[in-house]
């Protein structure tokens, strides 16, 4: 049984998979806030080159990967598929666990899978410089690497609170030749406006995006090299580029004659999850029986301490009674906890597939994710990015579930990145600075009084 399953360089996928061609319920185009007409390519032209906009709206199932992009992918792709034999042994559950190691990229995560094609498409369109925003620097460092590969300038507006806390990814950006400045900055009107109101503003992703977009839109008029904006998640073309992960995984699994019962990925904006999962979603739409799980963070005890009952979906009791895990509609608005993937900037394609019941959204609390990450590091050896630990927590849940059910399962998880630049988070965990709220039973009982009179759904 091989621990690592490789593809030869000539076996790398030569096309990306566009799930828009196979969506059971086609996505409706967003409406322009000014005209209320569907957003068209020209609306996005000030910030994206037209070749990427064409991908954003494409309905073609397969889109060729340009040779120049493949050449750069070969720096680290095809990425290895591992069999997690040591974790399997540790868990003692009837599961085969495979993981796609996306931590082998120069930036240490899956993000260069889209940064490289975005830099390439900008370059061939005549763009000289790319502006972007970044939080703790995962996306900024990936784009800095990609721009360096194609000889483009990169300008990264990094949220000030992260800029001051986290020097390492900033230094990675600098090493690859990018300019990284704290946002809000004095270089844009958006930044200056915020600083005039609050000179000590810690910044936010919203402010940083405003600065990067303004930088791109005003570049020519302000005498800067022709600039466009780049986004590392959420958008259709970003998810498209990431599908190289799942397409490789399918080929690698085929080499050992295997296929997953379950595919798991962590879901922030949705790009790493979609990259691994969408080729398998295609199989599921075609009739394959497979569970696909997107994992997000929570600190809410609803799923573990709530009662499965009928409840209103809202505090004003306007919705029909819905069967749900609940602490009662008076506790915390249900939409904040249920279907959370729809409420914080998740990719619309992923959200739609959750709504369609093709993907399961699952939330895991903080401590469980770090415990999973430590278990992983002490069995498989690799130290995971904290985001990746969410997927590992769900993986361990599924392994135990297989044991309880007495069923053999094959699980594929996307190991989206290493955590070697995130060790401060592990330090906080080891020092006991992280916690999950232990909601007192009295508070739960009080909240549940509100739904005592409602009918009870049948279980099982």
């Amino acid at each position, binding site marked *: 049984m091989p621990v690592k399953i490789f593809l030869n360089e000539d076996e790398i996928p030569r096309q990306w998979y566009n799930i828009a061609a196979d969506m059971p319920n086609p996505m409706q185009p967003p409406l322009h*806030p000014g005209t209320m007409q569907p957003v068209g390519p020209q609306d996005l032209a000030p910030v994206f080159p037209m070749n990427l906009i064409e991908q954003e709206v494409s309905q073609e199932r397969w889109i060729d990967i340009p040779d120049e992009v493949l050449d750069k992918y070969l720096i680290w792709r095809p990425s290895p598929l591992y069999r997690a034999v040591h974790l399997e042994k540790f868990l003692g559950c009837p599961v085969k666990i495979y993981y796609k190691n996306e931590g082998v990229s120069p930036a240490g995560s899956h993000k260069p899978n889209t940064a490289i094609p975005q830099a390439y498409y900008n370059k061939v369109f005549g763009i000289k410089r790319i502006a972007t925003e970044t939080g703790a620097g995962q996306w900024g460092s990936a784009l800095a690497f990609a721009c360096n590969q194609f000889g483009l300038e990169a300008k990264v507006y990094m949220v000030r*609170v992260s800029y001051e806390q986290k020097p390492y990814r900033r230094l990675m950006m600098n090493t690859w030749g990018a300019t990284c400045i704290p946002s809000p900055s004095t270089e844009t009107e958006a930044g200056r406006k915020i600083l005039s109101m609050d000179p000590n503003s810690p910044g*936010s992703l919203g402010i940083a*995006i405003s600065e990067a977009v303004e930088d791109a839109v005003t570049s020519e008029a302000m005498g800067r090299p022709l600039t466009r904006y780049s986004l590392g998640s959420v958008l259709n073309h970003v998810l498209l580029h990431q599908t190289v992960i799942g397409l490789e995984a399918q080929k690698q699994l085929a080499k050992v004659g295997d296929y997953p019962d379950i595919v798991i990925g962590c879901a922030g904006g949705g790009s790493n999850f979609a990259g691994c999962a969408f080729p398998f979603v295609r199989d599921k739409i075609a009739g394959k029986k497979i569970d696909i799980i997107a994992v997000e963070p929570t600190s809410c005890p609803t799923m573990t301490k709530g009662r499965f009952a009928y409840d209103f979906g809202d505090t004003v009791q306007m919705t029909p009674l819905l069967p749900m895990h609940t602490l009662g509609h008076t506790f915390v*608005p249900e939409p904040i906890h249920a279907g959370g993937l729809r409420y914080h900037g998740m990719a619309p394609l992923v959200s739609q597939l959750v709504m369609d019941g093709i993907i399961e959204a699952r939330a895991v609390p*903080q401590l469980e994710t770090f415990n999973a990450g430590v278990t992983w590091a002490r069995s498989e050896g690799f130290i995971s990015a904290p985001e990746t630990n969410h997927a590992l927590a769900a993986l361990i849940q599924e392994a135990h579930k297989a044991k309880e059910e007495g069923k053999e399962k094959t699980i594929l998880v996307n190991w989206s990145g290493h955590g070697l630049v995130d060790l401060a988070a592990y330090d906080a965990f080891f020092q006991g600075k992280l916690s999950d709220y232990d909601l007192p039973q009295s508070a739960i009982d009080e909240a549940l009084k509100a739904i005592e009179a409602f009918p009870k759904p049948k279980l099982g």
Partner: protein
Amino acid sequence: MKDSSFSPPFEETEIRCPRLGGPVTFGYCRIERQQRPCQRAIKCWSGHFDVAAFFRERLTPDEFDACFLEQPLSKVVTLIELIEQARKTLENKQKQ
């Protein structure tokens, strides 16, 4: 905004922000959207204190709903709004 006598752990507790990918305090989350709370603030902090009660004390019901229950704009729509803002900025600069 209403007054609040409730005192959450503003600066002494850090959690990992799933959007930034790094540690933040509640003091950051409660003003993340230009003095308005981050849409995820309740989801992220309910594991530490009764954050929903804190915001219900400080916000009117309409403000609370707008902060936490309204669907955020899609990324594409947000970008188009920012493009328009940037264009206006440029027009104003060119007039000066």
